[in-house]
């Protein structure tokens, strides 16, 4: 295991005060804090090797290109992927949209008589499968794709406990792609994605997994998950804002039409037509987020040094503790799995008679940063009949003292609101 006190000392923000007291940061599911090592790596890049990558022959351009491509290699290794299967995007949202647009672009081109890979051509009669626990980032791109092509959207429902309900018949021969979250950011549920990817492949559909809440928190081998694509963000795993990753199988990436087009993604350009570079360059138009790639690679190294297994174990312990402490409170109900079977560290709950917004506010006044609302999973809230939840989401720098402080915050809110009426649903 690792020494939490030493880890905490790497994160400058954790020593600041909030509303007069020390900061207790329990909102890493939204975005993580950054260790100075990552900030130093970015700054070192800017102060020593900053230049446009892949475009210059001078020394700085060479160094910048090496830094950028070296970062790609480090990140690939972190998830056991091939280097040229890693595409840099601005966030996970762009990564998922990139795949959704491969379908609409291929379909548009096919309509104009251009030869495209049929796996990406979609229309009425075809279906796309998601679930009722998807983040908006893995739902709306597919809704939009349906609205543009006439395909239909289907979804796996969820149980009252917040587990995926993998009914048969949802995925069938009409299905072109199945896109599922690995770990729910609202419920904490870890889904059997390998099984679902197999179901997709059995009918010839493609599969995407949303790894936003798993790559930062547990060892992930993207190949082992059996998916064709995976997407996640850098800012949730100690990296800078403004960078995300799409992983995709090489043969698929290379048979997709480009998404954003412009400089650096080309092979030949004429005034009226162009040809494109192979992946990953094909999907990285324009000057990319070079410093952020360097920072994210440093984040991967930082995590590797601590050990992803250790981080996972630490968070499992903390989550078990959180669930136990919450169970002791009257009038508090966890939304999502209440045991430690296949669940990660995001813990949502509602407090009888107090709206989550008010719970969050009272906690904030004690320096505890939690997130309240629908957590970009509005359909999940509707399904579980809660207007919103309060969510604790921990990371490697949190300890039991943080949870204790947060529990005190809930109790203070209960005191404060006393005999408040039940919130109407």
């Amino acid at each position: 295991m690792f020494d939490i006190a030493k880890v905490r000392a790497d994160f400058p923000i954790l020593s600041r005060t909030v509303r007069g007291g020390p900061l207790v940061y329990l909102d890493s599911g939204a975005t993580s804090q950054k260790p100075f090592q990552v900030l130093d790596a970015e700054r070192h890049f800017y102060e020593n090797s900053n230049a446009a990558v892949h475009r210059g022959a001078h020394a700085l351009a060479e160094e910048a290109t090496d830094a950028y491509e070296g970062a790609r290699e480090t990140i690939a290794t972190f998830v056991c992927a091939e280097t040229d299967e890693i595409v840099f995007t601005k966030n996970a949202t762009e990564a998922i949209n990139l795949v959704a647009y491969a379908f609409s672009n291929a379909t548009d081109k096919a309509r104009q008589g251009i030869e495209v890979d049929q796996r990406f051509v979609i229309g009425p009669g075809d279906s796309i499968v998601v679930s009722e626990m998807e983040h908006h980032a893995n739902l709306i791109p597919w809704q939009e794709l349906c609205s543009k092509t006439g395909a239909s959207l289907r979804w796996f429902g969820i149980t009252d406990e917040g587990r995926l309900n993998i009914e048969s018949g949802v995925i069938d021969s009409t299905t072109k792609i199945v896109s599922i979250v690995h770990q729910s950011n609202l419920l904490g549920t870890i889904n059997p994605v390998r099984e679902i990817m197999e179901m997709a492949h059995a009918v010839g559909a493609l599969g995407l997994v949303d790894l936003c809440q798993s790559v930062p928190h547990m060892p992930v081998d993207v190949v082992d998950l059996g998916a064709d694509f995976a997407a996640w963000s850098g800012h949730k795993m100690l990296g800078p804002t403004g960078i995300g990753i799409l992983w995709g199988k090489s043969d698929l990436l290379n048979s997709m039409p480009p998404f954003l087009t412009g400089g650096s993604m080309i092979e030949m350009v004429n005034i009226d037509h162009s040809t494109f570079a192979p992946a990953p360059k094909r999907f990285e138009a324009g000057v990319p987020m070079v410093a952020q790639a360097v920072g994210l690679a440093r984040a991967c190294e930082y995590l590797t040094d601590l050990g992803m297994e250790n981080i996972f174990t630490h968070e499992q312990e903390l989550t078990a503790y959180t669930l136990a402490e919450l169970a002791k409170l009257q009038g508090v109900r966890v939304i999502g799995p209440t045991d430690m079977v296949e669940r990660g560290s995001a813990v949502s709950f509602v407090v009888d008679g107090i709206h989550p917004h008010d719970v969050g506010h009272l906690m904030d006044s004690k320096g505890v940063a939690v997130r309240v609302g629908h957590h970009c999973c509005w359909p999940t809230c509707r399904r579980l009949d809660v207007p919103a939840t309060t969510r604790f989401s921990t990371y490697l720098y949190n300890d039991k003292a943080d949870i204790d402080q947060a529990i005190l915050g809930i109790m203070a809110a209960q005191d404060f609101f006393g005999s408040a009426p039940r919130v109407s649903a």
Partner: protein
Amino acid sequence: MSEDLYQEIILDHYKNPRGKELNVTSRGQSHQVNPTCGDEVTVDVGLNADGTLQVAYTGQGCSISQASASVMSELINGKTPDQAAPIQAAFMELMRSKGQSEPDEELLEDGVAFIGVSKFPARIKCALISWMALADSQIKAQLTTEMR
């Protein structure tokens, strides 16, 4: 800190809402949502025979949003549109003040309790949601009037 925000008046309106689910002969209705937290409020506006406003609301959300709706209905109910307008303007102004203004208690009555909310950017939207619904439903109600 919390005391800044949650004044007694606000908690009272939250626990004992006025004007909630009244039976209004609605001529205008507006449904507003706060996309970040999912809070919702629906406001119905009608006219009494004497030309004064009838206002009712339903909704779900945090104490601030619900108390604000209750205060809003208490302040606006029975006022003519001309009497209501300066109250609405004053409340909007109050919420923009970042805790700096001296609200007119005569005009805003219980509404002055929301001065603390204006210091918390993330909660201003909560306090305003019912007032936005009111303004929107009034526009709709007036449209209906003109179309007759």
